[in-house]
């Protein structure tokens, strides 16, 4: 197109396609208003054991191949670029693995017994499957909203709903459900043998290790008490909550008195600056609390438990440490920092397998850490942890990726991904528990051969879930018996999404 044609096009389009900007966003906001869940309609049974959930999110959307090489021969035959080339993954990508030795993960055939990618964390996953610590669900498939946009997909997964604008996140929905049904939780057993009292007395129940996470986005229609809102921590339990500095000498009392008086008088207008108010309130609480937590990371790990020296492993260690020592921490959001993101449009050849391996190696250590805690670990309340099978770890991302290996050595966005889920045999429903140790769901390749737009889809006889089913399952662990209500959206998804359990 010549320059003059571009200019003609610009003016022509300006004349014919003047779409009011924000129309789409406005419409979504309207839907969000209508979609605020009716928490009182949820029915809750007291959990036999209070769960603790760690949701690890793979930002960028990871390729499914680490957990699914079952279609590899067909994929390679139709790919524009050859997976088995030496400049790509080598001929081993098409061959069965001869061993499951992590030290030899780069050698020989790469397709493990369960169709996993040996080099891409496959050896660790096989170990965890053998130990009954893990399930792989290969058909977490976005169909209701097929968008391949990061933002929309991330929000859908973090909020457990198609209605992403102005709607609450999974953590806030869970907290509001618990608030509405507090009596169902009174007396629920925790993993250290104590029972849950008032929700207002819980210590650090909702925590984010990934900063300001959408999973704790508030519900504009329903006020969530401050004590149940998500708190953010860093992976060293650093404590920016204290006040120091070249201080004001003995004016502290004058400052405090005036402040107390002023805040009391203007508390009615708190909503104008609510986030800063909340921040100050929580600062006071955390100032002391973080001092207690810092020492937990300095304690020796159980024998044989050694986390890899990576940013992600440090964050996971912090989350697991908090979960182990504080059974009152019920839900945590964790990212995968330091692993470089999963948006592998390019250079997947060099980066993806090692990154998946680092991830799975750290999770395997975390599972060993969790399992070693029962009967040993002291909790913050001074009790001994009695159970370790209430901790669930979920790993998933924005969406999956195409299976055509593109010219930049990576994969573009697509809609089928794996859910890797670990532990929690004591809090999962029957069939989910039975599925620990298994790979669930089957797929096949679709799309035009030798083009970029090739992807896997679930086989017609395979169970298939939307990403919102992860949220639905979490609500179920916490006692919701009709959890799809919490993922439903009027008109666009009125029935909501089933739990994993419901299709097994």
């Amino acid at each position, binding site marked *: 197109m010549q320059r003059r044609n*571009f200019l003609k096009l610009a003016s022509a*389009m300006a004349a014919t396609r003047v779409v009011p900007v924000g129309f789409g966003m406005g419409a979504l906001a309207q839907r969000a208003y209508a979609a605020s869940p009716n928490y009182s309609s949820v029915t809750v049974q007291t959990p036999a054991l209070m769960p603790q959930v760690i949701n690890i999110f793979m930002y960028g959307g990871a390729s499914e191949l680490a957990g699914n090489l079952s279609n590899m021969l067909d994929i390679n035959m139709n790919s524009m670029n050859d997976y088995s080339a030496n400049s790509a993954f080598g001929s081993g990508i098409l061959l069965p693995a001869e061993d499951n030795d992590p030290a030899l993960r780069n050698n020989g055939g790469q397709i493990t017994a369960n169709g996993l990618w040996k080099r891409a964390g496959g050896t660790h996953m096989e170990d965890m499957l053998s130990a009954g610590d893990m399930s792989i669900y290969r058909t977490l498939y976005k169909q209701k909203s097929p968008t391949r946009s990061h933002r929309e997909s991330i929000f859908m997964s973090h909020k457990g709903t198609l209605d992403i604008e102005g709607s609450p996140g999974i953590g806030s929905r869970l907290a509001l459900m618990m608030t509405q049904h507090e009596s169902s939780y009174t007396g629920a057993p925790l993993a250290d043998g104590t029972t849950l009292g008032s929700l207002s007395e819980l210590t650090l129940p909702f925590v984010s290790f990934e900063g*300001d*996470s959408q999973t704790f986005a508030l519900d504009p229609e329903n006020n969530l008490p401050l004590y149940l809102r998500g708190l953010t921590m860093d992976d060293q339990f650093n404590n920016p909550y204290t006040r120091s500095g070249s201080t004001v000498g003995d004016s502290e009392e004058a400052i405090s008195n005036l402040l107390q008086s002023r805040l009391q008088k203007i508390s009615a207008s708190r909503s104008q600056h609510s986030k800063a108010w909340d*921040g100050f309130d929580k600062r006071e609480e955390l100032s002391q609390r973080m001092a207690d937590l810092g020492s937990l990371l300095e304690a020796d790990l159980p024998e044989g438990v050694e986390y890899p020296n990576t940013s992600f492993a440090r964050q996971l260690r912090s989350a697991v440490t908090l979960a182990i020592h504080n059974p009152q921490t019920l839900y945590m959001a964790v990212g995968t920092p330091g692993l*470089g993101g999963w948006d592998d449009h390019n250079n997947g050849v060099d980066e993806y397998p090692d990154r998946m391996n680092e991830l799975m190696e750290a999770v395997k250590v975390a599972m060993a850490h969790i399992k070693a805690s029962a009967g040993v670990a002291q909790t913050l309340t001074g009790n001994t942890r009695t159970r370790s099978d209430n901790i669930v770890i979920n790993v998933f991302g924005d969406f999956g990726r195409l299976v055509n290996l593109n*010219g930049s050595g990576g994969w573009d*966005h697509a809609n089928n991904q794996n859910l890797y889920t670990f532990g929690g045999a004591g809090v999962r429903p029957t069939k989910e528990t039975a599925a620990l140790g298994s790979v669930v769901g089957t797929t096949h390749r679709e799309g035009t051969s030798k083009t970029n737009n090739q992807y896997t889809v679930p086989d017609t006889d395979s169970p298939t879930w939307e990403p919102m089913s992860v949220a639905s399952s979490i609500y179920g662990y916490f006692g919701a018996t009709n959890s799809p209500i919490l993922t439903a959206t009027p008109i666009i998804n009125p029935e909501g999404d089933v739990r994993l359990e419901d299709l097994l």
Partner: protein
Amino acid sequence: MAGVYIKGFLLVVCGFALLGCKPASPDQDGSQGSRKALSYDHTLSQSEFNALAATDQYMVANKALSSMYRGVAADEFFDLTKGLDNPVISQTNFISDLQTQLQTSMSSDQLTAAYNDTFGTSDNPSTDIDESIPARFTSLDDDHPHQRYMARMQNYPISRDQFVTWMSYFLANTIMFSPAREMESTESQDITRVLGYLKLSIESSTPIRDVVRGWLNNLSRWRVSRSPENHALEMFELYLGIFNDTPEEQQNTINGGIACNNWYLTDNSDGYQLLPDPTRPDGAGATVQVFGQYINSCDELYDVVAGHALLIPRVTEVIVNYFLDGSSSETKQALIKNIVSSSPSTFDDIFLSVIFSKSYLLSSQRPKTFEENAFGFLNSMHYTPRADRYPLDRAVLRRVWDSSNNSLPVAVHNMGWAAMDYKIGRTPFLPMDVLSFATYHKGIREYIFLNHLAYDGRRHPKAEDFTEAEVAREPPFAIHNGAFYVAGTENLKPELESLTAPEFIDLIFMTALGRRANAEEQEAWLAEGLRRTYVTDKEGVYQLTKTNGDAEWEYFTDDFARVMLDYISRLPEFYYYRAVGQ
């Protein structure tokens, strides 16, 4: 000859420096553009500004300036010799002057002087005189090239040049132009590239469509998108607001990828370079349809995007969303519609319209970013990063924008607000989670208010540092006083001498909070001032205490201000812009 030379040199430098601490006019001769005050219905006019109460005028003035990380001091905005009880505004045409100045470029001499004043210059060994200028900013990190832009933003006179630098920095922190340093495929050169591209483009008044068109085939854009199909997808999302929701949109993305399929990004070992793929047919290899247009190459796809009707509304929306965070959807939509209706061509058009919109200046209330809050305050307090000893810029500048192994609470990346890092740019809302906010509070309280005192004046460079040096010379830059003291002393500035203690309390509150102290606060701080002898009761008139001691320790003004600022830092309202009348 040497004497003539240095006199001329100083005239340039001091001429510049006189402009440096308030929104004064750059040289009109070097100007570009229309240089008129804005006259849109949606922007604030001088007469509307004049109709506000004096304290609200000051708040609004600083809301506008702090959006660009600048501020106007109360002793410049008001005539403090007449007190603060019934303030007399000395800058009577502030808003229209500011609007004009932001459209007026500096002359090349002024630019050179501003550059030298900011980054210093060494002596010319071939002359007998010392022509060196100590840098105002001495601690800059090459791995964070945006620090040099921040230094310009802080030090250049309010002018189009300063505004262009700020716009470039702002845009480079949005999803549209972020260099995404967090990604494995990018490096600090991408920061330099994007900032340089934006600055040069905006400086020359390049139309927005051409700025976007030129950016789409830039290596740094490709290093973020990385594959042909994703390059197309991100183009549609970032610049058109089309989010791949429908099968038709997905087909546009797929076809866009085909159009760009003869380009690829090399891998890490080859340095992530953008290369044409000789194994593919030239162009798309086939005609494909995108948004109803038939195209044959990536260049033609760029033309389609840059020429799309949604481009200007989308760019406007992205910018408006930052400024009107927390406002209703209707308010945002109305402003976007008004701006788009005014047919903006350049980024200047959009930013001026947003910053000076009535919906932003008069009605919005949203959290201030750390940069807006800290540098708005510091600039309203005559701060200097160039102290007479122990330079302050490391504490107040470098550490803010150094995201490598920097765990200090003053660093914005520890507040979830890193500069240049995020693939999706900074979110259009400030992260206010507990950890981010605690870090923000700690950073501003300890580093800006209490510890480093870059503002009080005691450590500001003074003329004697040069005139009484071993080889004496005139100061190579204008000497300016701090918020309270004559440069390099603890002697109160003459313009503050007539303030009573209650007026001084108001001065601190108005500068930091944009409002006067209320009755309870006045009473409490007067009492505390008396108790700690910061305030003296002279026959019923409360005055700032003067010790009559060593001139270095003549006043306790900084100590008094510090305890009040500590209190202010604990008020939730301090972290928000307020609406007029709120």
